[in-house]
């Protein structure tokens, strides 16, 4: 009945496995007439647990952790890119080019020139905003990684501690059921962060490893750390084991964060940089070959200047002169105010195939990038959903074996109560018989 009440008390404890007493008939007494039973003996208290299910659970756990982190971060990335939306770069780029076409139809019109400048400002702002948002997203991933590393170190510390307690407890008594439940729960949690492998020695101590790193060895936890390293090409976020050796972690939450930090976000930033630098080069090439709107008395045109300054998504800007005066936008090829051929040429950059060996326009390049982002998002969503389902199934199976069923415990309770009553009746009968004997004296 102690075990039953222990089970009931822990019905909602995470990681708890129901316990059972293994009873055996006591060793019988040898009599000349034969063996006389001596009642019942409790052999040991065992927890009902399936190690295989645990292993399967932890297998799905690191995939699920990985997919969850990626889905989460991809969703953030998606909301940064804001497509398909009026304020997305794709749309703003079209606005920019279509306004040049508009200018060509009426090149002397300063209102159109101002609108054009406004559209260019919106486009440049969008590049800046995405650039900043991606950088700050990267920074927040770095912080998340650091705190996840802390979590891992805490978990491994606790596991090492439990290793010690379990050895101590099991020297004197049987299995340390509750301590082992706790350690299993910690392993479940740890397996979300990294892909773990573990072995148990004769003393009941676990050695836990992950991709290329030792995390727990007996009673000792090996703390890992994360650092940013400039490898000459980019700033990478790396994990290191307790000896400072770097490890390439791909799985689990940590693997997901590293992938986003080292690959996905730099990839997107790189695409925006390529896009903006090509835009700057092409627009400037045509614009600086044109002629500005004639000014002064008599009105005289002057040679075109660069429209944009800067070289990438972070630095792209509109040249000072155009910000000061829209007549510095060059639309004419020969300096006559009504000529808009340069404006038409700039507007037609939208059709110019300049990427991937002359097969893609600026727009193709950008929609291509958005398209592959979309596919990645969907992939991470699908993986997350399927892994979640799988884990739930395994969790269900594990619960079916190890979970506490109140009905079952109640039935046991009644059963034990009844056998207690029966035993009491036996005692009562013996007592009555004894009394009869005593009264005879």
């Amino acid at each position, binding site marked *: 009945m102690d075990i039953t009440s222990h089970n009931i008390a822990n019905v909602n404890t995470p990681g708890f496995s129901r316990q059972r007493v293994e009873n055996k008939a006591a060793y019988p007494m040898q009599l000349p007439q034969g063996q006389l039973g001596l009642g019942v003996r409790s052999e040991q208290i065992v927890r009902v647990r399936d190690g295989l299910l645990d292993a399967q659970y932890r297998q799905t756990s690191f995939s699920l952790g990985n997919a969850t982190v990626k889905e989460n971060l991809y969703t953030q990335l998606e909301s940064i890119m804001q497509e398909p939306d009026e304020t997305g770069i794709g749309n703003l780029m079209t606005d920019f080019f279509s306004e040049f076409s508009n200018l060509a139809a009426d090149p002397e019109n300063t209102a159109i020139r101002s609108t054009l400048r406004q559209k260019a400002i919106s486009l440049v702002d969008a590049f800046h905003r995405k650039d900043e948002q991606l950088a700050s997203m990267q920074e927040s991933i770095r912080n998340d990684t650091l705190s996840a590393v802390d979590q891992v170190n805490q978990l491994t510390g606790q596991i090492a501690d439990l290793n010690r307690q379990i050895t101590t407890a099991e020297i004197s008594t049987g299995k340390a059921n509750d301590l082992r439940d706790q350690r299993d729960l910690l392993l479940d949690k740890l397996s979300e962060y990294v892909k773990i492998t573990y072995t148990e020695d004769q003393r009941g101590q676990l050695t836990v490893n992950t991709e290329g790193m030792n995390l727990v060895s007996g009673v000792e936890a090996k703390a890992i750390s994360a650092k940013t390293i400039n490898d000459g090409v980019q700033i990478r976020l790396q994990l290191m084991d307790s000896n400072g050796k770097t490890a390439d972690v791909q799985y689990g939450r940590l693997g997901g964060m590293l992938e986003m930090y080292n690959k996905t976000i730099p990839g997107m930033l790189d695409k925006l940089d390529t896009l903006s630098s090509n835009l700057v080069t092409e627009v400037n090439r045509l614009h600086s070959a044109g002629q500005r709107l004639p000014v002064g008395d008599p009105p005289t045109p002057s040679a075109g200047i660069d429209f944009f300054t800067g070289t990438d998504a972070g630095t792209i800007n509109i040249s000072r002169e155009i910000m000061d005066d829209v007549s510095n936008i060059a639309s004419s090829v020969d300096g*006559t105010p*009504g000529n808009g051929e340069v404006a038409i040429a700039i507007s037609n950059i939208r059709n110019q195939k300049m990427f991937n060996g002359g097969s893609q326009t600026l727009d193709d390049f950008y929609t291509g990038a958005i398209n592959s982002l979309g596919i990645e998002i969907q992939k991470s969503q699908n993986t997350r959903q399927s892994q979640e389902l799988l884990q739930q199934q395994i969790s269900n199976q594990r619960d079916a074996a190890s979970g506490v069923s109140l009905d079952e415990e109640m039935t046991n309770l009644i059963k034990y109560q009844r056998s207690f009553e029966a035993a009491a009746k036996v005692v009562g009968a013996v007592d009555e018989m004894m009394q009869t004997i005593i009264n005879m004296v």
Partner: protein
Amino acid sequence: MRITQNYSVQNLLSRINNSRERIYTLQRNLATGKRINQISDDPENIEKVMKFNKSLKMMAQFQDNLKNAVDFMSITAQALNDATDVLAHVKELTVQGSDSLSPDEWNAFAEQIDQMLKQMVDISNTTFKGRYVFGGTNTTQSPFVLSPDGTVVSQNADGTSGSLKVEIGENKIEKYNITGEDTFAGSTDIFQTLIDLRDAFRAQDGDAVRGLLAAVDSSQNQILEQSANLGAKINRFDMFARQYETQDLKLKQILSDIQDTDAAKAITDLQTEETGLQTALQVLAKTLNISLVDYMQ
């Protein structure tokens, strides 16, 4: 299989959660009217949606450009009509001028021709939204100026022959102006004809007036020819504009098929989903309470 309390609660909760997620998506699709609100809603079609949006934008721009050009050309056509009227009147006077006239009549006719010369110069300086329509690409300078003594009409030194071009489609760039050079100073210099005619009337020289009749005729033809060219171009541009209207409609339809919410289906789905959610909640509330404990004293 052993079914424990935790097991059934966990399963029901996750089902309720999934149901709520689907309800949220349906609600959002109904509220925005769009099925594709973000990239991950349909990565296969996102590229199409973005391309169609771009095409629609550019098409709207081409329509704007066409409208702007057609307006410009209509003003030009109006100016050419005025020029035709003026020249018809000039011709009448020229024909009458060959009859014997009194000195007063010679002077009155000369005066009228002089007025018509000024009118013709005004016509050549017609503007549309501040742009000289006959100025070529020199749209901000007056293309033709009559000297104060009325003896010379001088053309803008920078020229009036530049072509104004507009983008009316992908890779379709068209000229939409007729130049002052071609219209007034082409094979026949109309202003010079009018000046000569006026001077002939002033000199009361019937032979000279008769001699200019051919030049007046060719002036009329020159304007008519330009008028015909312009009319054809306006028709062509109008046709393009109409084409864009139908294309625009079709493209919007296709885009709508891809990205808009099928409201009837979404509402039905939403109701089904809500019923499911309600059932799950009721089941949870009912079964959670059932336990052997209830039947024990």
